[in-house]
């Protein structure tokens, strides 16, 4: 039954592309929807997400689909489906969720958040999952780039001399880049190391598979298991259950 819920959950066709969270069999025809393999399930995964800041309410989801109906991304990209991702977490499909591309497609608009009848807070659930994925070396390459820029400039966009001249012409004050304070936080939290690690892992994987997985971010198979990552929930316990989520 669980498998059925997963494969037929929303009746959408994945246009031959990967399903949300479906790291396996990337872009390989109709099997693109994630298959539930009981031997692969990690029943502790939902507790792990629930311990993460923002993930507290994951168990409340009753799969109504309101979040999907509200989602501007799901409307245009069949690979993305917040309900399916939440279901996969609750089933324990840890590996597929963390290494798949689906979790990075949330645009963070909070439309689902405001309308979920169970107060699951899907927007923050997605972020909580992204945080776990990043800790395990799956930081999306776009954010790896952002981390690099923050360390280099303390900002996401360079302010060049040319920019400052344009600002001056409009009577706007010049801006001097000062990366140090931001960089120190990034280094302290080691997110730059993790991002580098994930780049390395992707390269290794590529070599492993003889280039077959070119362009695929995130790892599969035995490699994911060797993961020396921190024990679930030890590094980032949600400090105080009454934090941001509660109203």
């Amino acid at each position, binding site marked *: 039954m669980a498998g059925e819920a997963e494969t037929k959950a929303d009746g959408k066709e994945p246009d031959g592309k990967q399903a949300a969270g479906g790291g396996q069999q990337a872009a390989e025809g109709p099997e693109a929807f994630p298959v539930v393999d009981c031997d692969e399930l990690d029943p502790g995964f939902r507790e792990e997400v629930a311990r993460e800041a923002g993930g507290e309410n994951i168990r409340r989801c009753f799969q109504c689909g309101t979040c999907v109906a509200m989602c501007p*991304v799901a409307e245009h990209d069949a690979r993305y489906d917040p309900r399916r991702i939440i279901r996969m977490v609750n089933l324990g499909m840890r590996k597929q969720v963390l290494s798949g591309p689906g979790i990075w497609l949330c645009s963070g*608009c909070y439309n689902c958040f405001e309308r979920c009848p169970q107060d699951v807070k899907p927007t923050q659930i997605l972020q909580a999952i992204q945080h776990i994925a*990043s800790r395990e070396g799956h930081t*999306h390459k776009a954010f790896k780039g952002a981390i690099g820029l923050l360390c280099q400039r303390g900002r996401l966009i360079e302010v060049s001399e040319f920019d400052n001249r344009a600002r001056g012409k409009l009577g706007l004050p010049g801006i*001097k880049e000062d990366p140090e304070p931001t960089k120190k936080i990034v280094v*302290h939290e080691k997110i730059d190391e993790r991002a580098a690690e994930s780049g390395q892992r992707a390269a290794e994987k590529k070599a492993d598979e003889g280039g077959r997985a070119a362009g695929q971010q995130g790892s599969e198979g035995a490699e994911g298991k060797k993961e020396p990552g921190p024990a679930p929930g030890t590094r980032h316990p949600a400090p*105080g259950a009454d*934090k941001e989520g509660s109203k």
Partner: protein
Amino acid sequence: MKEYALFIGCTIATRGLNYEVSSRKVAEAFGIRFADIPGFGCCGYPMSHVDHDTSLSIAARNLVQAQERGLDVITLCSACTGALTKASKVLAGNEKERNHINRILRESGAPEYRGKVKVTHFTRVLYEWIGPEAISKRVTRPLTGIRLAPHHGCHYERPAYLFDGFDSAKRPRSLETIISAVGATPVRYLNMERCCGGDILAIEEKTATKVVNSKLRDIKDVGADAMVLHCPFCSIMYDEYQATIEEAFNEVYKLPVLYLPQVIGLAMGMDPKKDLGLNLNNVKPKALLARLGVK
């Protein structure tokens, strides 16, 4: 006169000069003083997809800069508003979390955050503190007959718990109220609350452009002279990307995209170029300006 620390963020500083200059001019006209704080950097929003503590700490580090000057923060970018408000609210109400973040700040050489700085989007200040009546009184060039489609976007009023519900999170109306106050006609369209997709532009460009296209089409369906918004990300998506999207989807929109302060400034008789930077908008609002008799 009320003074705020102006948080410009990364995007406006280089790609939203029209927004910045018009905001400064309009603020000045209403007696709001903006203090420029050299220590401000990235707001921490991009890291909200990577790590909870990092994102909060980067945001808190910025709040500390304002705290040292004894000022509250005013924001122009909605993503900055979201990240900084989250830090401000979470750290004000939760001592345990504040101590945790302060430990990170201390170990990275930043001063302690005491949890008192408030963060407000400029539009909210105009809407709540200045108010539509006061804005209306300053109108010298009413935008009568101009149809404007508001786009509130996200992180300005959503999630509601961060913004005290000052405007509805499901059906916000503050932009419409201000549009009416300057004599223009607010236009309603399908799926008004949907976002610009800017957050996934770097993740999945194709999907992001589809999200943008669907809103441009919804607005085209009802007909509007321009779109009005208040976030540089939204502007990049609808204004900078518009030509690309027209080509990709074989559509013609030619929909000018204006920042709210540009609209208010126009109605107050300000100079479209020098004061409002309208020449920097990608889709030129020429027809609209001609109708107002502005050159």
